[in-house]
């Protein structure tokens, strides 16, 4: 029997475990910070939406030129990007990610409703596309549709793209899907000018279906990714 210095074995294990423990602690810390930053952006958007809604209520008969903001769209895009990154870091099933995703979806819905009201009153509203995808099954077309919408939003920062995970447990979202009678078996689905389109649509298809897209001012990309898809 040859001697073994048990102390060295234990010390090495302790140090290694400490390094891993520190790694786990730092990981938790940075992810908490990320979630906080997402919430901060979300809060900012909430205030923006509330402000716009209040402004809308206050100026019932006032000029439409005071309403609407493309900056909000950019903020929503950035929120989507960050959420998408968190999803890749923590997985789509992570409780925190699902919570933030529901929050993000709700903000998108609120923004969408506000834009609808502006459209009714002012007969003009930002060009928007509502996009439904699914994470519940393998959906190659959803992935490709995500690429197209990301690209379009990069090209046209004023374009509002609202992307929703069909399977997200959110009653407001269920209301929207029932209004448009979205069929989950035919995803991806796009709602443009109140019409529902199923299946993958290329850049050219979308530009033809929504000619207003081409009238939007193109810009160097400042944001990317449309959704957590």
């Amino acid at each position, binding site marked *: 029997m040859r001697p073994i210095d048990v102390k*060295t074995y234990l010390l090495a294990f302790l140090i290694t475990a400490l390094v891993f423990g520190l790694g786990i602690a730092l990981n938790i810390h940075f992810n908490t910070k990320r979630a906080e930053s997402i919430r901060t952006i979300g809060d900012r958007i909430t205030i923006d939406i509330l402000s716009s809604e209040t402004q809308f209520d206050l100026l019932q008969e006032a000029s439409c030129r005071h309403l609407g903001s493309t900056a909000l769209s950019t903020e929503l895009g950035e929120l989507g990007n960050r959420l998408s990154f968190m999803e890749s870091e923590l997985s789509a099933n992570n409780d925190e990610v699902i919570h933030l995703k529901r929050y993000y979806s709700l903000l998108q819905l609120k923004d969408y409703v506000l834009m609808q009201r502006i459209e009714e009153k002012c007969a003009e509203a930002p060009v928007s596309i509502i996009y439904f995808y699914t994470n519940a099954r393998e959906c190659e077309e959803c992935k*490709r549709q995500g*690429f197209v919408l990301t690209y379009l939003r990069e090209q046209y920062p004023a374009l509002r793209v609202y992307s929703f995970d069909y399977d997200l447990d959110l009653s407001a979202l269920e209301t929207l899907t029932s209004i448009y009678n979205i069929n989950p078996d035919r995803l991806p689905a796009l709602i443009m000018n109140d019409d529902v389109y199923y299946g993958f649509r290329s850049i050219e298809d979308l530009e033809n279906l929504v000619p207003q897209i081409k009238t939007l001012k193109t810009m160097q990309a400042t944001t990317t990714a449309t959704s957590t898809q």
Partner: protein
Amino acid sequence: MLSSLSATDIIIYGFMFISLYFQVFLVITFLNRRKALHAEHAVISAHLITPFNAATTPSVAIFVPCFNEEKTLSGTIDSLLALDYPKDKLSITIVDDGSSDNTWSIAQSFATHPQINAFTKENGGKHTALNFALAHTTAEIVGCLDADSYVGKDTLRKLIRYFDDSETMAVTPALKIHNPSSMMQRIQSIEYKIGVFLKKLYEQLDAIHVTPGPFSLFRRRVFDELGVYRKAHNTEDMEMAMRMQSHNYKIRNCATAWVYTCGPKTLKKLYVQRVRWTYGFIKNTIDYRHLVLNPKYGNIGMITIPTACAGLLGIMALLAIGFTNWIRLGFEKYELWSTVGINPEWPRLFHNLFYVRTSILTFVSIILLALTVTLILTAKKYVEGSAKPDIEFFLYIIVYPIIAPLWLMKSVYNAALSKKTSWR
């Protein structure tokens, strides 16, 4: 968070944990033994100025097995003849293992020298040449010097000093690449320096698992008691060390007894050599599997061989995972580009620190990399006296991780299918 770990994550984290554990273990060992190692250097230096004592100086026989070594054999023999050791106590046996070039003529040209015996035999492999030489000597200490290696003048004296301890059964030297000129040789040059440092640490752990062909010395009784050299998957030096370890024979190392070896010049030659070494390690470990995780055999059973095995498996798993990920990424990029065209952009992390990945893996990888660099530079300082990074260091850090997987994969493949390796 931990519940969301996939099987891939568990493999990666497990491998990282073992790698980090082993490196930390080595660092602790070095810090614990640092003073003793320096003291040992001083003792060996002092020994060099002590006159030989005819009564206690052991007789030594050095074997030079050679097969088609016409270019390097003369240099090898000349370096042996120049050794600082009593001439009547040192004999050299050249065994030509059926060379088809001029090796035998060169060997014969040395045969008239009183210290040299030269033999030729039918080709049978290195282990047969060594056993042939063993049968022709009665020296107390025997060793081998590959015919592409050269010894320093004081190397033998330094090594012999370790046999003052009656329990020492073998002593390994410190290997250096002889005149590194090609890029591959320069990479090996730093690799060998790391090897010198690690070998010394392994010695401190009583866990040396290779007694290298170039100039490892043995007490003759090792062969009398444990048997002669075996083919051992073309790595007879590894098998001999494992056999000694499995019989609890003490193997020491002298980190200042320099032996210069001609490293493979090209990637192809290096690849062949490393496939042979790694294949030999796998096969010999299987043959000596009773050592693995057996506390009876101390550190070699509990840490060095198990972590080497885990490292090999881990690298294979990482390669498979990395390869799968690259394929998946490639498909994703293809899908993206075929859908919206190519729109190159800077990664988002350059715009915002939010996008810097901060997983446990990132953090542990940074620590592991820092520890690896520290170990390499510590090895450099230990061997050269300076830790200053040089061109070899950067070549090693950048090129080695790219080329090493080539022979690791081939060795595992060969071992799995029991495909034999070749010497050249």
